[in-house]
């Protein structure tokens, strides 16, 4: 019988606000609940959402009233979250605190306090950061502070792992890569017949018939769905669209999304008189993404930086041929037969799109098979299984050798402060050692913070003793075997 845990997901970003991190937390939590764990989510309050809520599958969400400063991130006040966090952790009997997103102050605070309280911590990084500008340097320092004493780090792609390891000076062994996933059922291609996939003939593999081949004069529609920001490569798109349309007569563009760069696109359309060939939809809701995607044959993703790029998986799942820039974690995401890569520059992007259009016209790409392939590659259940393994590793349920690999376990001192069983020791002096190495001044400052945090912890234990905190009854747990019947998707 595998051990089950009480897990607290902590992040500033959660529903009702839409977004990638939010849906990642929700999907992962759902699947972990299906595997028999208890999961709660701690986030700050949103407009009209304050207090404690249950979602349909027993996922409990604490919307903690807190001051929000910028783009729904809370004010960084190192210690102020501690009393309420401790109360929640004790009443829910949490063993593992899992923080998400490096820009979330809640997550950093929670990891610090959780270590002070003697809990296992995991951090998931969802984004890439630079090293040069002032904001990045500050964020990186903060990240280093938090991650000095975390049990394990999860990144969404290998590029993201490299980035995080460098930014926070981590031991690469304590960083795992667990990619995002998509709910493939929500991204079905237009021609996908539901009857054959619903299990009428479970033993005959599902091979959809090849659709009518594209003739040389059929119109090919290229879809772009992204927020129109600089880092999403909108400038590149603005430059490339007129050239692509000039080279390939029977093509159309559909662009969905909004942002500060929308005006540049509109100007480009007016200057080149492309109103009938480029359609701009403005911002769309996540549920509508699939309906927009299935209107096209090619998905163009000109992003300049991307940790994972869930949207290209969604596009491939909808049966679109993907043209994308070779940046960040994107090359790891899809197999090469689904994608055409371009360097992040105008000429190459035009050339790559041309190649993709030519390949589609020559019927060299079996896009109708993409959905099944993506479905078998990406599932949240798989993400949950891999995350569960991380939990097992940090809590000592599986041995150090099995979790980190035999070489690492036998190395004499691959991490000086690691305890005997391969898990981080909670002793204050060991924690201080880890923080002290953060920098000449920063190290001392961080140590001071940790000591103050520990004193606050002692004070809280005196002022609000543990036995005066009511224990929550658990939502009836699912047995791991039951999860096949579950209807939550």
């Amino acid at each position, binding site marked *: 019988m595998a051990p089950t845990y009480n897990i607290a997901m902590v992040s500033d970003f959660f529903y009702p606000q839409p977004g990638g991190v939010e849906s990642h937390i929700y999907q992962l939590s759902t699947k972990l609940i299906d595997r028999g764990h208890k999961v709660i989510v701690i986030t700050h309050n949103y407009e009209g959402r304050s*207090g404690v809520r249950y979602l349909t599958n027993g996922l409990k969400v604490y919307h903690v009233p807190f001051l929000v400063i910028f783009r729904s991130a809370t004010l960084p006040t190192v210690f102020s979250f501690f*009393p309420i966090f401790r109360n929640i952790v004790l009443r829910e009997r949490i063993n593992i605190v899992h923080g998400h997103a490096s820009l979330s102050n809640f997550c950093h605070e929670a990891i610090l306090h959780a270590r002070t309280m003697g809990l296992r911590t995991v951090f998931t990084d969802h984004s890439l950061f630079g090293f040069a500008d002032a904001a990045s340097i500050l964020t990186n320092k903060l990240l280093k502070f938090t991650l000095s004493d975390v049990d394990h780090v999860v990144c969404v792609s290998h590029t993201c792992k490299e980035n995080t390891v460098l930014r926070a000076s981590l031991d690469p062994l304590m960083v795992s890569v667990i990619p995002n996933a998509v709910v493939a059922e929500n991204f079905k291609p237009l021609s996908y017949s539901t009857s054959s996939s619903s299990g009428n003939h479970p033993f005959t593999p599902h091979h959809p018939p090849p659709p009518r081949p594209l003739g040389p004069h059929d119109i090919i529609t290229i879809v772009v769905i992204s927020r129109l920001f600089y880092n999403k490569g909108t400038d590149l798109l603005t430059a490339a669209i007129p050239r692509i349309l000039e080279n390939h007569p029977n093509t159309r563009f559909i662009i969905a999304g909004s942002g500060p760069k929308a005006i540049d696109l509109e100007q480009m359309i007016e200057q080149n008189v492309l109103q009938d060939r480029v359609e701009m939809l403005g911002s769309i809701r996540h549920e509508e993404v699939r309906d927009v995607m299935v209107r096209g044959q090619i998905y163009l993703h000109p992003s300049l930086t991307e940790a994972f790029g869930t949207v290209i998986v969604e596009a491939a799942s909808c049966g679109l041929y993907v043209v994308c820039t070779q940046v960040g974690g994107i090359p790891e995401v899809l197999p090469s037969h689904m994608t055409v890569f371009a360097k992040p520059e105008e000429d190459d992007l035009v050339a790559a799109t041309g190649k993709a259009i030519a390949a589609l016209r020559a019927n060299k790409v079996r896009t109708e098979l993409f959905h099944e392939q993506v479905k078998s590659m990406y599932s949240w259940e798989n993400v949950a299984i891999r995350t569960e393994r991380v939990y097992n590793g940090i809590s000592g349920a599986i041995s150090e050798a099995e979790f980190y690999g035999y070489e690492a376990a036998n190395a004499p001192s691959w991490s000086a402060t690691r305890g005997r069983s391969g898990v981080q020791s909670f002793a204050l002096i060991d924690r201080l050692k880890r923080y002290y190495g953060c920098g000449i001044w920063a190290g001392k400052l961080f140590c001071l913070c940790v000591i103050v945090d520990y004193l606050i912890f002692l004070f809280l234990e005196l002022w*609000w003793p543990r036995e005066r*905190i*009511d224990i929550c*009854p658990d939502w009836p747990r699912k047995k791991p075997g039951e999860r096949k019947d579950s209807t939550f998707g």
Partner: protein
Amino acid sequence: MLTTNPHLYIRRPSPTTAEFTVTTCPRLTIPLRLALLLILLLRISTITAAITTIYARFFLDPSSPHVQPAASPLSLLIQGDIFPLLTHALYTLHASPAGQFLFSTLEPVPSWALLLSSSAAIYVALFAQLHTTESLLVLRGLGIQTSTGGGGVQRARTRFIPTEKIRDVLINEAFRGFEVRYYLVVVVEGEEDVVVVFPKLLPRKKIVEAVWRGVRGCLFEGEGNGMNGRAEKGHV
């Protein structure tokens, strides 16, 4: 020693009636009764002393000697002449050794400070409560009545909610200060806000759950047999 953590008394005078009382007052033992009596005497003497001080400082004219009332205090009382009776009583108190001592001790205190502190003392002695008692009375077919406060000279604030107005009785969780508390609420039809039961004491989960079960049993017995306790919780 004089107070305890909130605890629950359940009184069931009949099968269709139940009263749930949450109070910080411990069981009345002889020492506790004596202590409470002592506190009562202390309150009375504080009030008397404060009134006498105010009288001596502001109403007593030292130049004109006190005139003994023509009749005896008893006859004054019978005749209903309260004012001369009170004046006489206060003067007697003031003239007593204890009153004189108090007067001379407070001589250097400025008038405004004296007035303020005496009023404060009277207020505290009259209204400060040692124990908090809150209760919930459930009458099947009629409704429920919440009551808060009471004790001392204050009257308890009560609120009656008839059965047809009660949409549900449930336990909810909410943030309060630096903690998350369980509390019992009554959802009233046509009202924006729910009615919180035991709003001052906010007893712990064990008590709240016992009361919740009792209320449901008493109020909806018969129709609520199939209800699953967990299903009602927290969906607000």
